[in-house]
């Protein structure tokens, strides 16, 4: 049963909740229990053709030759799709937001970079005919040295995986090979610390394994457009990506998402639509491209593996005074969403704890593995796993209760975070208190009396070296009507992720603020760089 602790922070809320806390039925629940909810494959078309994709058996290899002549003549085959047939054969998902270089082909032409990478499409009257034809394709490969470990990939002389990023790391803003977080002086703090504890954390890639595999059906429409039924979670991403790859104006595509048979992030990569659309255009017929379960496991992107090193400096009284993190994302052979995941990870360090000295380097690394993607809080889940395991070890090391240890170090309102934002609306202490109560976990009185609203912003949580703090820009005009302080309205100093800030870019001419705009602050975004929101 759901219990609302409305006594906590009661003075901060207007608590007339109409929907929250009340059960409500899913709008598609009746469809689910009658089996009538429409997934992408619950549409039938006359003369439906089937697309199957031939995939690389090698993690890294040069394609020496492809002979698909026997396959093209095989019974039931309508069309072979080759790399040269793809109008725009290099793309990256976030190019739609101008983030990252186009690095991933829809069909590999000269080099394959992960086991399962698509090479050839075969469109036939049945899946069986397509698969039987596929067995007739002759491809010769020259295997190349491959790298599967994130730290090995960063060593000099490691095989170069992705030609867009030859040093095996994503490039932020055209020149930085990792994300940095700097706050205070960790070396000085480690020297002062009573205990220094360092450990390494490793996650495996995790496959979403939705019960419905990725797939789409592309159907030529009567007015020259293509209608696409798709399993995607990201309808607009998929439409725009498919339009780009097919060199079609986006208004030539009509995407219809149905219910998604389990996504969890594994259906955001636009895996099947571009080739299904191309196949439909080349044959003039409706084409279904459905991943088999084996393809979903091998080719469908996982949440990427991560390796995280954490070094903590702790005082015997329980304070963490330094945290140093080095983290590596295994992006696999191509970028997809890993560049963004790394930013989220960096944004999450050092966890919800007030630590005066923080130093983090986070890398997006390319290896010859299946490209990674989004999954359930990707970018954050792994670093949280590492941080919380480390917190337990820290507590054991100084002989302190692990819950009290967290409460002692938790952010309080007013603390300065490593990202140079003031902590607001903190609640970890109150959550811990309620959890302890429910679990009958004993807490000392001092901890039962703690509050997120007390003790923040003091020297306990302050920056030890104030000279390292950039001076804040002059605050912009804040509308007087704003009754409640909103974090997004505070002036943000121009913060650079690098130790030496880049030269300030010229401020673009300010357009007249649209009605209702609440600030004119200049923000720095790890994704977009310095520009106006």
């Amino acid at each position, binding site marked *: 049963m759901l219990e609302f602790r409305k006594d906590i922070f009661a003075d901060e809320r207007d608590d007339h909740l109409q929907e929250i806390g009340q059960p409500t*039925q*899913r709008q*598609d*629940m*009746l*469809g*689910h*229990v*009658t*089996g*009538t*909810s429409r*997934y992408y494959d*619950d549409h*039938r078309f006359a003369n439906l053709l089937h697309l199957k994709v031939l995939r690389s058996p090698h993690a890294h290899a040069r394609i020496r030759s492809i002979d698909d002549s026997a396959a093209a003549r095989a019974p039931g085959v309508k069309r072979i799709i080759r790399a040269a047939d793809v109008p725009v054969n290099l793309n990256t998902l976030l190019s739609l937001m101008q983030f990252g270089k186009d690095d991933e082909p829809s069909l590999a032409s000269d080099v394959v970079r992960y086991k399962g990478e698509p090479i050839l499409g075969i469109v036939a009257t049945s899946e069986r005919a397509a698969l039987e034809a596929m067995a007739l394709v002759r491809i010769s490969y020259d295997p190349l040295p491959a790298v599967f470990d994130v730290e090995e990939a960063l060593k000099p002389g490691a095989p170069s995986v992705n030609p867009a990023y030859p040093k095996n790391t994503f490039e932020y803003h055209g020149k930085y090979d990792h994300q940095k977080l700097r706050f205070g002086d960790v070396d000085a703090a480690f020297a002062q610390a009573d205990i220094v504890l360092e450990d390494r954390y490793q996650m495996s890639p995790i496959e*979403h*394994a*939705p*019960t*419905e*595999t990725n797939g789409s059906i592309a159907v030529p429409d009567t007015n020259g457009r293509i209608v696409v039924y798709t399993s995607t979670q990201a309808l607009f991403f998929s439409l725009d990506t498919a339009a780009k790859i097919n060199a079609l104006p986006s208004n030539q595509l009509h995407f219809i998402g149905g*219910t*998604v*048979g*389990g*996504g*969890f992030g594994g259906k955001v990569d636009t895996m099947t639509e571009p080739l299904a659309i191309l196949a439909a255009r080349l044959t003039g017929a409706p084409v279904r491209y459905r991943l*088999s*379960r084996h393809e979903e496991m091998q080719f469908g992107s996982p949440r990427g593996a991560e390796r995280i090193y954490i070094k903590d400096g702790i005082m015997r009284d329980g304070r963490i005074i330094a945290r140093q993190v080095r983290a590596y994302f295994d992006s696999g052979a191509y970028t997809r969403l890993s560049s963004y995941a790394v930013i989220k990870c960096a944004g999450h360090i050092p966890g919800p704890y007030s630590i005066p000295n923080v130093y983090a380097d986070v890398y997006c690394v390319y290896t010859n593995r299946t490209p990674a993607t989004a999954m359930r809080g990707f970018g954050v889940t792994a670093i949280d796993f590492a941080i919380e395991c480390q917190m337990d070890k820290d507590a054991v090391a100084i002989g302190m209760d692990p819950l009290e240890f967290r409460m002692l170090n938790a952010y309080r309102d007013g603390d300065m975070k490593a990202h140079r934002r003031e902590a607001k609306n903190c609640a970890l202490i109150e959550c811990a208190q309620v959890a302890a109560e429910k679990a009958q976990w004993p807490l000392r009185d001092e901890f039962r009396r703690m509050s997120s609203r007390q003790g923040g912003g003091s020297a306990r949580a302050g920056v030890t070296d104030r000279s390292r703090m950039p001076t804040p820009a002059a605050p912009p005009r804040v509308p007087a009507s704003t009754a409640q302080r909103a974090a997004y309205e505070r002036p943000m100093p121009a913060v650079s992720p690098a130790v030496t800030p880049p030269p300030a870019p010229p401020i673009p001419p300010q357009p007249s603020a649209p009605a209702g705009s609440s600030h004119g602050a200049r923000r720095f975004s790890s994704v977009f760089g310095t520009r106006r929101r």
Partner: protein
Amino acid sequence: MKTPIQFRLNGEDVAAFVEGGANLLDTLREIVGDLTVKGGCWQGTCGTCTVIIDGVPRLSCITLAETCSGSSIETAAGLRRGSELHPLQIAFMERFAAQCGYCTPGMLMAAKALLDKNPNPTRQDVIEAISGNICRCTGYEPIINAVLDAARDHTRSRV
């Protein structure tokens, strides 16, 4: 050279011509037109395609279609009587036993196969009955509770 087969589907007579080696799942979806049966793996490992054949649960994706000639097959399409939902369907709704809904038709048939043979199952019986059906969304507890609810309501309404 196709093989003719005839069977009863949710109480109605159905006939189809099937290719050699055709499985029942593809036959139901592509030829007969029953889209309530879903496919998850085509390997017999996920249970999504579960139907009832002659009173027992079966995986339609690994059932050779022509072995079903003369059989009585039940799918999710046959659960409701007109506008009246089956107690399992009502229970699944009330217990939030579905999120993405893809495993639901197979789950319902696995549960129905249980209740048709054992109207008063224990919790362990229910767990065993759905042990061949994978759900990636709910964590199974709402489904187990729904099946137990349906058993209670079913028993109560059988006067």
